[in-house]
């Protein structure tokens, strides 16, 4: 469904991603693992064309999307959930969902406000609150809910478990599995191996912008030395 082929990305003169190559098959969950600053977010932004790769290409459903503007990428069913909980703090929960809303897409669930509230009951009670009044966990839920409103076929989840309470982390894991069961493809980035183990089928490990391992979760579990070398467990 998504192929990342020989992607190199830069911030100014700093070479941040070095020849990334991996695939995400339809209906699977792939975890992008690595420490802080390894290049996980840049990989996601390169896929979304929020950072333009200087070389290489991103193939999504057979289209080379490398030169597309971000909004066109999003309109073709790639939903991005940013890491810094970039919700619109001045807007209410309902208005945040409105910004994410897109027309229905063939073969994808058409989400409504009520459906995302079923998925995240906490948000339902706070639908008329402004974004800035939400807790960290609720904000994280809202970023996911907002992206779902675009009826994506594929979502990019940037560190969904970062900085939120353990109870909510568990809820996140359940949500991801539920989305997968509904046919969504997921690429998520994580520092937390335990969380990844709970949801992922495939794993990509990156360090210093270079990928060090690509395989299934069971491949990784069979090689504890790699796990210990690149991930803080």
């Amino acid at each position, binding site marked *: 469904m998504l192929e990342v082929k020989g992607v190199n990305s830069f911030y100014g003169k700093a070479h941040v991603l070095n020849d990334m190559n991996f695939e995400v098959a339809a209906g699977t969950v792939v975890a992008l693992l690595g420490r802080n600053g390894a290049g996980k977010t840049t990989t996601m932004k390169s896929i979304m064309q*929020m950072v333009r790769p200087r070389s290489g290409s991103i193939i999504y459903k057979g289209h080379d999307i490398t030169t597309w503007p971000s909004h066109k990428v999003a309109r073709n069913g790639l939903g991005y959930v940013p890491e810094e909980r970039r919700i619109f703090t001045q807007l209410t929960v309902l208005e945040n969902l409105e910004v994410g809303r897109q027309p229905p897409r063939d073969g994808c669930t058409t989400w409504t406000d009520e459906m995302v509230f079923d998925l995240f009951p906490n948000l339902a009670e706070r639908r008329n609150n402004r974004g800035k009044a939400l807790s960290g966990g609720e904000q994280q839920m809202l970023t996911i809910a907002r992206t779902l409103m675009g009826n994506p076929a594929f979502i990019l989840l940037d560190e969904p478990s970062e900085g939120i309470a353990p109870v909510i982390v568990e809820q996140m894991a359940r949500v991801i599995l539920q989305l997968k069961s509904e046919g969504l493809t997921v690429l998520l980035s994580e520092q937390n191996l335990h969380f990844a183990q709970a949801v992922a089928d495939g794993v990509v490990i990156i360090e210093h912008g270079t990928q060090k391992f690509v395989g299934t979760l069971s491949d990784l579990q069979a090689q504890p030395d790699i796990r210990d070398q690149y991930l803080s467990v």
Partner: protein
Amino acid sequence: MGLFIAQILTGLANAGALFMVASGLSLIFGVTRVVNFAHGSFYMLGAYVGYSLMQVLPGMVGFWGAILLAGIIVGLIGVIVEICVLRPVYSAPELFQLVATFGVILVIQDLALMIWGPQDLLGPRAPGLKGVIRIMGEPVPQYDIALIVITPFVAFALWYLITKTRIGTLVRAATQDREMVSALGVNQAWLFTGVFFLGCALAGLGGALQLPKGGADLLMDFTILGSVFVVVVIGGMGSLPGAYLAAVIISVLNVFGVTYAPQSTLVLMFLVMVVVLMFRPFGLLGKEEVAGEHGQVGEPERPIKPAGNRIRLLVAAGLLILGLLPLYSGNFAVVLVTDILIFCLFAASLHFMLGQGGLVSFGHAAFFGGGAYAAALFVTYADTPMELALVLAPICAGLAAIVIGWVCLRSTGVYFAMLTLAFGQLLWSLAFQWGDVTGGDDGLVNIWPSDWASDNSVYYYIAFFLCTGGILLLRQAAHAPFGYAMRAARDSARQAEAMGINTKRIQLVAFTFAGIMAGLAGGLFVFSKGSIFPNELETARSFDALIVVFLGGVKTLSGGWVGAAFFEGIKDYLTRFEYWRFALGLSIIVVVILGPEGIVGSLRKAGERFGLLKVPEDAK
């Protein structure tokens, strides 16, 4: 009591157009982060277009239809400007966008001159609303009442659009995080264009609505710009209720000012603004602007290095040619080059704080004109000799800079720029309205050099030494540790603070130093001309300096004086053409889009390409 109420009503009526223009500006800034200087021009276009439409559309329906159509047409002109001029420069630093919109002002000014001619147009009165009604015996024009009623409706419609519709939700979301809105599938480019249409249409509407009260003339664009900035800043950037509140405050204040203190109407407005910003730095209803921590967009600026031997040789040769000028050329050239030198020092002083300190000031003419007026006042009232006046001019300008800088530097970015503009306007209004002391519009005359310096060649040498000395001193400061601290405060104020640099103090010193140098240029100016008029304090004068700094090259060390020399050199030739503003505006826009490095930057690039200059290691 009747008079009191009548005046409040007049103020409320005047607030209408002001609110519409200000809310448009505020809206555009909120989403695109562009301070649209050309907004006053769209207001002016609204008046002209409305005037022409009213000539052909008859009756009451025609009148109101013309106003509505004028708004739409001006909105569409705004769309053209957005697509052709602003789209290419959205990712450029703020200053580039400002300069681009300034180019638009010049183009529109000459277009209006071409189409509607130089004479002021008297606006037609509204059919059916030509009379007055008496309120407690005082006459109030019916049209005023109509405006008082219409404005809240426009404000309400706007409020509804922004808070209750999907478009409005997207606009508000984009105001906060454009990149994220785009990642959610919204085409930013069209959102920007839409907002620009709305903002410009509001300005056009405002211009057409005030026709029966004020007519149309070619000065409207700048006249309203000052008040609009004041309104937006007092109300708070991006706040619609704030814009309405501030428009009412300013308009009512103006009406009372005209009655009770006609000498101080202009000053009053800016004083209110300063007071508000002292207590609420982001306006009455505004929110804190979160300045980006990303620094400047585009290629990183090169470190500043001392000039190489070749450049030094070139400069020495240039100085020699200038130094011997009176020996081989006529009086005309000597006077012209004196003017050029003075303008170079003025521009270099602005360039110093703008390029090195990142302090974009819209009111630098305050110190140029301030220095000039200080010298002229000392000569007129205290018979001060030229030598002493030339010392007092920079000192007075420096003192003014300390006070103005202290207030302005409490804000940053756009608010800083607007505050400097307001202070510039404040000084201009003082000179303009305090006729007893400053001579008002007639200025101060008979300010001539001492006898020994009265010969043009002798005065040329005075200007030559002081100006080149001043420019070299500014350059020296950029190379000194002080210059390092300025650049640190410019590029990352927080990190500079964390390293123990008192950024605010550094900026205040830089601001003051730039003020002193501008004051020196002003002092030299007044003795070379023998007179001084308020237009040397005008915002247009500040913009002259901004434009030459920009054309010369912001990110270079010598851009200021090079741009000034080039511009002042060709100005005499250029202004002989009837539509020179059009040509200048267009060239500014082209430079912004195609050659943002300016003259010096482009020369440097060319020099490096042809192997005349070495490319520094870190720029390869």
